[in-house]
């Protein structure tokens, strides 16, 4: 059996997957990326590298991916629809694959208004669903978006997309997830969960439509550094839901950072035990990567599985 990537293999083996996230720097040195990669290497199955998150110019996702691959971690390249047209996307996908990338996460991307270059032209040639479809087609039909054949060495990515149970309209969120699965998405990472009740309702709808049988779902978890971080996410980020009770809990804590880590651990344990249909966890601890090992260990997810044979496509 050949697997598209290590992450694919982990899911196929029925194990609870762990992914994390690295945010590239606002400069041209990979030193920090490698440092974070070394921190995470034994505690994750694969790591996302964000693509100019919040439309702030950062070292590219694909280039960063090459660096972390070199450090022994499997990268999940992120590709947004904001900055590249279909020509650049297909070109970058082929380039990424040739450099050893095997997972790609397709997303719309934050509008450039949020970033440090709000005057730029945005692209949005295709949307995230069409991107999923395109990546799938390149692999399974060996075709470019135009319909022209890719004669040889087609890029064979394991394809991911995102879901946000906390955005509106809520009823339509599961429909949109299903659309992404129809389009060819094979794994899903959710927006970070703070409103557990809403996430459970979302998962109920997912299960009732059998979507959890068709796609692998990773629950997004973000450890909060304190009540201010919680407040910021609550009020300053569109599509996030943070209950007041959580903000209060952090405010009252003696050591807010410690409390934030405890909350994340509680959330992961809860999901593992009580929320069916979740196949893994995606820990987004940007600028706080050092806490990921503790979270992985204390939620019983350490050590991560190792595969000695070379079944994974290279």
């Amino acid at each position: 059996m050949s697997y598209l990537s290590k992450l694919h293999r982990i899911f196929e083996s029925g194990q609870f997957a762990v992914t994390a996230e690295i945010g590239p720097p606002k400069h041209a040195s990979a030193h920090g990326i490698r440092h974070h990669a070394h921190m995470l290497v034994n505690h994750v199955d694969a790591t996302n590298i964000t693509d100019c998150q919040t439309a702030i110019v950062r070292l590219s996702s694909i280039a960063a991916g090459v660096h972390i691959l070199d450090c022994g971690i499997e990268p999940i390249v992120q590709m947004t629809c904001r900055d590249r047209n279909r020509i650049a996307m297909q070109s970058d996908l082929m380039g990424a694959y040739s450099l050893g990338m095997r997972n790609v996460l397709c997303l719309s991307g934050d509008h450039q208004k949020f970033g440090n270059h709000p005057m730029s032209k945005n692209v949005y040639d295709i949307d995230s669903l069409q991107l999923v479809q395109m990546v799938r087609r390149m692999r399974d039909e060996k075709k470019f978006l135009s319909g022209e054949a890719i004669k040889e060495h087609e890029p064979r990515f394991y394809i991911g997309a995102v879901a946000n149970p906390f955005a509106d309209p809520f009823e339509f969120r599961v429909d949109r997830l299903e659309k992404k699965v129809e389009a060819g998405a094979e794994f899903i990472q959710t927006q970070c969960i703070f409103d557990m009740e809403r996430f459970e309702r979302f998962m109920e709808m997912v299960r009732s439509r059998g979507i959890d049988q068709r796609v692998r779902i990773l629950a997004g978890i973000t450890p909060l550094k304190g009540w201010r971080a919680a407040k910021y996410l609550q009020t300053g980020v569109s599509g996030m839901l943070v209950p007041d009770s959580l903000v209060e809990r952090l405010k009252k804590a003696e050591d807010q950072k410690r409390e934030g880590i405890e909350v994340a651990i509680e959330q992961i344990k809860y999901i593992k035990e009580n929320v069916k249909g979740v196949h893994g966890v995606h820990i987004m601890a940007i600028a706080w990567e050092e806490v990921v090992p503790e979270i992985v260990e204390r939620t019983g997810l350490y050590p991560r599985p190792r595969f000695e044979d070379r079944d994974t496509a290279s």
Partner: protein
Amino acid sequence: MIIAQQKPIKEIATMVGDCKRVALIGCAGCVTVCLSGGEKETEIMASALRIMRRLEGNPLETVTFTATRQCDPEYVDALEGLVKDVDAIISLACGVGVQYLAERFDKWVVPALNTDFIGGSTVHGIWEEKCGLCGACILHKTGGICPVIRCSKSILNGPCGGSQYGKCEISKDVDCAWQLIYDRMKKLGKIDRLLEIQPPKDWSTSRDGGPRRAVREDVMIG
């Protein structure tokens, strides 16, 4: 209609700073309806520029006229006599009119307006962008709401993850087009249509394909 808004008066004054006599040409088309370049606005601007320049001790002579439209050659031709002896023409039309005047007359033509978008009025005094000028209309697929321009990301399979409380992530003042589409399609009992995956758009009919042209051969009599 085309919605345009006036540039700041100081910017316009700078454009004709070295002129002694200018013509201000308004337009009775779209810019009259959106209250930025009609007869009244043209006369107000002429008055304001005259006062400004007198205060500077560098008086400006003005000639004002409001053309029926500035986007048809015959209406532009008719301005010939009027603009003969001026140093510059200030056009209060949209970007189209400015270009017609510039092409027709060997005069320095400057725009008094910024042409913003095509849209319509919501309440008197407020105009909003509605159409994306994509050249391949898909309004029948989205309940009559344009996803190309009213969705900040031109998503055809929306909404994105930033849609919350019916608003777009870019601003609380901007409705999420996909929330609107969802609500409308639900009302019309056509939600199942939104489950179809819309393929990538052919942008070649839009500005991306280069400057466009429309032709009606049957009315071209030689």
